[in-house]
């Protein structure tokens, strides 16, 4: 039997099919890796917000002398009696943490852009009684924003509520 070699046309067709196949597979793989990286970025962004909210929650749980402001709230830390201001900056879409006069960014807009921030406080008693009447019994912080990951933005709404322990004490070490 006579063995003939491949013609140029056959080789070209084979290479073309191979390249199309490789192109499709490579495209799928690149897409997959892209989504994987985006998911990871979102995870990092959410992790940062989670840490920030947990920090606020912990401090507020043991905090005293709460008051609300236009863009946030003020309280005193029980550990060192220092004044803390949590403030929303609508221009930079970030949340600031101001301890006495030192300002730091609590939620960085590079990772999580805060579009809505509200503080809801309730349970402050007007009548005098056995318990601390100056503190709120419940403080709720709600924030809505966008977790940033390259071209994909994931909208997220988060909310924490705190019933401060010291809201029912008559006095504390900070003199309240």
């Amino acid at each position: 039997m006579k063995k003939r070699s491949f013609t140029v046309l056959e080789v070209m067709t084979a290479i073309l099919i191979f390249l199309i196949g490789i192109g499709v597979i490579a495209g799928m793989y690149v897409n997959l890796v892209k989504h994987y990286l985006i998911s990871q970025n979102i995870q990092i962004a959410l992790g940062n917000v989670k840490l920030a909210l947990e920090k606020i929650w912990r401090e507020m749980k043991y905090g005293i002398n709460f008051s609300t402001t236009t863009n946030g709230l003020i309280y005193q830390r029980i550990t060192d009696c220092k004044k803390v201001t949590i403030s929303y900056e609508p221009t930079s879409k970030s949340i600031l943490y101001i301890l006495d006069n030192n300002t730091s960014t609590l939620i960085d807009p590079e990772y999580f852009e805060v579009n809505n921030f509200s503080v809801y406080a309730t349970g402050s008693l007007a009548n005098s009684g056995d318990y601390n009447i100056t503190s709120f019994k419940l403080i709720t912080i709600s924030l809505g924003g966008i977790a940033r990951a390259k071209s994909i933005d994931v909208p997220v709404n988060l909310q924490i509520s705190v019933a401060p322990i010291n809201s029912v004490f008559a006095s504390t070490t900070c003199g309240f």
Partner: protein
Amino acid sequence: MSMQQLQSQQQGRLLLNRSQTIVEIFIALMIFSIAFISLIVLVNNYIKILKTAKDRIIANFLAQEGIDLVIAKRNINKAQKLNWLDGFYNNFCIDINLNIIQSNDISNCPLYINNNQFTHTPSSTSTTFSRLISLTTSTHIATVTSMVQFEDQTVELQTIITDWIP
């Protein structure tokens, strides 16, 4: 070298240089496909887990909120010299307005977003989250269970509250 030896050597070379059969190519393609599909499934699952993680973070905060809402209500009851469990039921929904609605089924306690806040007040912005609080009481102690359900998952937190202020 004889003519016969040369012929058999050439036949051997031809055997070595033979091309793959269709079965061999098929098996090779199958192995490659399995490996590639496994990779896609693996990464896809990971992406799904990361997406669920977002909802889980929200659910955890909502479950913790449920417990703090009960504590706040208990504190207000104490401050107003009411019974410490005044207004509570065994199973109920409660939101940041501290309005309590009796319910035994978590599906009756869906959470909506009203003015950027999670509440039970129906609004056009519904969420996948529902929250039910259960209270098991004895004389001066109560166990609070806050359960948040989303899609097919549940987050449950539990704490103990007392008749006295800790």
